[in-house]
């Protein structure tokens, strides 16, 4: 017995250590000790009260983290605001287009611009409507703002539109206020020039220009642009009139194909006369 006591006294640390480790492992293996559930509930309450008591103490790290989180949230919300603004602009544009479509005389086919191309300085765009949508070569294309171009090629699902910003495009136009008619051509930049308007005619900056009923390509009264500059050249009998088109050619997304085709009899007659004139030369 004495030897056992001596042994325990000699190795008391090791024996205690072993016993405590076994107790710890047992507690871990039990996991959630239900018996201390009530005790823990008291602890949670105590800890909660203490935390409430010390909640006035500022925590720089927490504040930094909160600031960072708020900045990220701010950035996220700013992005959302921009998206919503864009959606709002698009919504307004589409609403205008719907109203405009209801007001238009000629039937229109809405189309989405799916591509743009420049071939030898000629500007084209591709739209997602084609023969299957009753689109034919020669139909004008416009936006709610104004004239954009004309269909020059169609497939079953797609069409190619030649934009008005092309060297060979000539648009028979009319000044809305006075009814003076002329031929508008692209100046190679952002604007158009209205030719054949005599010096004596009443043309002022700000006049609106529409397609004229002399046109064999476009239906009459399609908005075209606004006169932004009138230059009187003493060496010429005609004015130099600069027109800014209403339609923003560089940012086309949605367009309308006007279901209008020139009168074939009229086109045929014109072609015959042009042929005769060429032969006379």
């Amino acid at each position, binding site marked *: 017995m004495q030897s056992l006591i001596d042994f325990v006294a000699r190795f*008391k*640390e090791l024996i*205690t250590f072993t016993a405590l480790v076994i107790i710890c492992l047992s507690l871990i293996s039990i996991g959630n000790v239900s018996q201390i559930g009530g005790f823990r509930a008291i602890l949670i309450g105590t800890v909660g009260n203490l*935390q409430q008591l010390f909640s006035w*103490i500022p925590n720089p790290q927490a504040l930094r983290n909160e600031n960072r989180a708020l900045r990220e949230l701010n950035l996220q919300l700013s992005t959302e605001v921009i998206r919503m603004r864009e959606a709002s602009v698009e919504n307004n544009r589409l609403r205008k287009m719907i109203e405009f479509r209801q007001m238009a005389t000629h039937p229109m086919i809405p189309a989405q611009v799916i591509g743009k191309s420049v071939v030898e300085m000629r500007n084209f765009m591709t739209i997602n409507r084609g023969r299957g949508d009753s689109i034919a070569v020669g139909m004008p294309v416009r936006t709610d703002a104004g004239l954009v171009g004309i269909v020059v090629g169609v497939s079953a699902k797609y069409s190619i539109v030649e934009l008005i910003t092309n060297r060979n495009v000539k648009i028979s136009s009319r000044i809305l206020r006075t009814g003076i008619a002329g031929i508008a051509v692209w100046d190679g930049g952002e604007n158009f020039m209205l030719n054949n308007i005599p010096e004596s005619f009443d043309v002022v900056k700000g006049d609106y220009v529409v397609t004229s009923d002399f046109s064999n390509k476009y239906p009459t009264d399609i908005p075209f642009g606004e006169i932004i500059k009138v230059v009187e050249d003493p060496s010429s009998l005609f004015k130099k009139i600069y027109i800014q088109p209403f339609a923003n050619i560089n940012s086309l997304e949605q367009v309308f194909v006007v279901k209008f085709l020139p009168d074939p009899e009229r086109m045929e007659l014109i072609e015959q006369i042009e042929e005769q004139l060429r032969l006379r030369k």
Partner: protein
Amino acid sequence: MQYGYDRSRKKDLGIKYVLYALAAVLIAFFHVVLSNLIAIGGITPNLMIILVVWITLKRGQFVGLFAGFLGGLIYDAVTMDVIGTNALSLTIMAFLTGFFYREGKEEQSVKSMKFLGILFFAALVHNLIYYFFYIKLSDLSFWNFFFKYGIAGALYTTVIGIFAIFIKIPGRQIKI
């Protein structure tokens, strides 16, 4: 005369143990309530390790074992941890720290730079064992976690341990 001295000694010892227990409870609550104020990158010092190492170096391995076990149990209870994890890691830590105990040189042990070295070693041992249980049921890599948080936590605990060197408890030096 001898009987009176023994009674007084036991009384002093009892008071000291009560103080240790109070310190353990206060430290546990401090850790839960206020430690986030001194957290750096989510790492907080473990004041219970400092207390247990300090007690072990002052009172020996045997007392240190109980200090580790009971301190760990308090910690587990207050921190809502699995009961036994901190108790186990602190008990093992105290057992190993106990080998650094030098009878008659207790004051030197806790009031020198040696204390910080022992503290760092003890904190590493504690974190190694504790994170083993902490990581066990997760997909985290133990060694990555240990190198990231275990070593950093041990270092932070050691830095805070500098203050323990200057702790002076009034009263007679008592050995058991």
